[in-house]
């Protein structure tokens, strides 16, 4: 494709003006207040249509306005209906004067964060045209940069547990993270904190913070999770993964976070019942680090050392998954009892 270039990313002033004009045209800003990693975050959507598209993933973190936000995100689109991303593609990243910018041409999205000003901007062509991996995990890159500034890390993993503690489920796509995460909805004792991206704090006792209450599974795997069928989100394209919003479909079953008790590496086996066996820390690091590092934009060179520090602090288990999904919650509870 032929291309020309512009010398600079959009200026922060221009972004703010664009947002305000879009909000005015859309009938005003719609504010969503969250408690994310225990901090007040305000998401300002330009109009109800954008809010409706991207709010459900945060439903479990909604909170009353609590002082001045630690982050304000401005979110708008240009109403370019029918602008649908067709797949992943190259991204362009820059960092100048503390302002981080990512442009993803295949979806048209711009993400900009001024961490010092605790302000971000997210523009998309059409709020209802994002691919499922974006609308189920909105503002992922923006939030990962902001989490860095809070001394937290966004990692690629699921997380489930109880108020007293939980586990981080790690591994590449297809390893069973989502099935394991969503299986906890079969057992009242367990709570859901995410199936793909969560934040982890690096305190002496690491803490997991939920970011999204969305969940996704391949349509072909739905028959293994029949408890989810009534909870399917509307509007999912047939060629995409099935999408769930846990807080909407199972009120009270998601959780904002918990102390991290163990790292769990799911592994698909030909067993019937799921079983947890001790794993090595190297297994945990190999399952956690590459997929996290390559999904961060830009890939973080220091993330490997940070994750090695994390896996040294908690035990690792391999969760051998069997054909019977209903046995997974009990295996997870046995890990937590240890």
């Amino acid at each position, binding site marked *: 494709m032929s291309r020309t270039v512009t010398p600079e990313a959009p200026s922060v002033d221009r972004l703010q003006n664009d947002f305000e004009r879009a909000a005015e045209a859309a009938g005003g800003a719609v504010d969503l207040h969250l408690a994310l990693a225990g901090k007040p975050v305000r998401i300002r959507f330009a109009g109800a249509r954008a809010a409706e598209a991207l709010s459900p993933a945060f439903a479990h973190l909604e909170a009353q306005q609590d002082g001045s936000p630690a982050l304000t995100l401005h979110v708008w689109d240009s109403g370019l209906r029918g602008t649908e991303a067709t797949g992943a593609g190259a*991204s362009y990243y*820059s960092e100048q004067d503390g302002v981080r910018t990512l442009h993803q041409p295949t979806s048209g999205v711009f993400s900009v964060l001024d961490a010092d000003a605790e302000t971000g901007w997210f523009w998309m062509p059409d709020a209802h045209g994002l691919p499922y991996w974006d609308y189920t995990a909105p503002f992922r890159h923006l939030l990962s940069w902001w989490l860095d500034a809070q001394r937290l890390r966004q990692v690629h993993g699921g997380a489930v547990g109880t108020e007293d503690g939980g586990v981080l489920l790690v591994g590449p796509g297809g390893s069973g993270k989502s099935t394991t995460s969503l299986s906890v909805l079969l057992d009242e004792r367990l709570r859901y904190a995410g199936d793909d991206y969560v934040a982890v704090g690096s305190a002496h006792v690491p803490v997991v913070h939920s970011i999204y209450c969305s969940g996704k599974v391949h349509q072909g795997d739905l028959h293994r999770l029949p408890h989810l069928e009534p909870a399917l989100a509307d509007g999912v394209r047939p060629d995409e993964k099935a999408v769930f919003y846990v807080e909407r479909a199972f009120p009270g079953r998601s959780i904002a976070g918990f102390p991290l008790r163990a790292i769990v590496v799911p592994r698909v086996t030909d067993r019937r019942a799921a079983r947890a066996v001790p794993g090595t820390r*190297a297994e945990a690091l190999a399952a956690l680090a590459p997929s996290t590092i390559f999904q961060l934009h830009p890939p973080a060179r220091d993330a*490997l050392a940070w994750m090695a520090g994390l896996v040294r602090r908690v035990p690792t288990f391999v969760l051998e998954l069997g054909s019977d999904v209903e046995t997974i919650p009990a295996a997870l509870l046995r890990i937590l009892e240890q």
Partner: protein
Amino acid sequence: MTTRFRVNSPNVIHETIEGEVILIDLKTGTYYSLRDAGAALWQAIEQGAGEDEIAAELRSRYEASETEIQDAVRRLLAELEREGLVRADEGEAGPAAAPPASDNGAARLPFAAPVLEKHTDMQDLILLDPVHEVGAEGWPHPAPPDEATA
């Protein structure tokens, strides 16, 4: 004169945990692991040892003939170099790293030729969604119609 090797930083990042080395090539998306003698060899590279010193270090830790260890070291170094994980430098070897295990009376372990385990499942992610850091050349955007048809 001996061949010395350096880790191919900053493209290659690595961590050793419970005796196993995890290596990630940030450019290609490939990641690797080394255990046992392979991890010992990597540790010696990090400490600036040359090929001969690496072989001596492994001989002090493992029960095997000199030839067997030398061949294994040469093979693994060549593979690490081929994978772009290390770069060869001709020159004086660095100071010997840790004192050989045989010096402090520890029993030597049975030797198995080290294996570089290679994982390519992340490469798709890099190919599908590479990240380009934008420099002075600026941001890409679609060309105006006259250029697009040029």
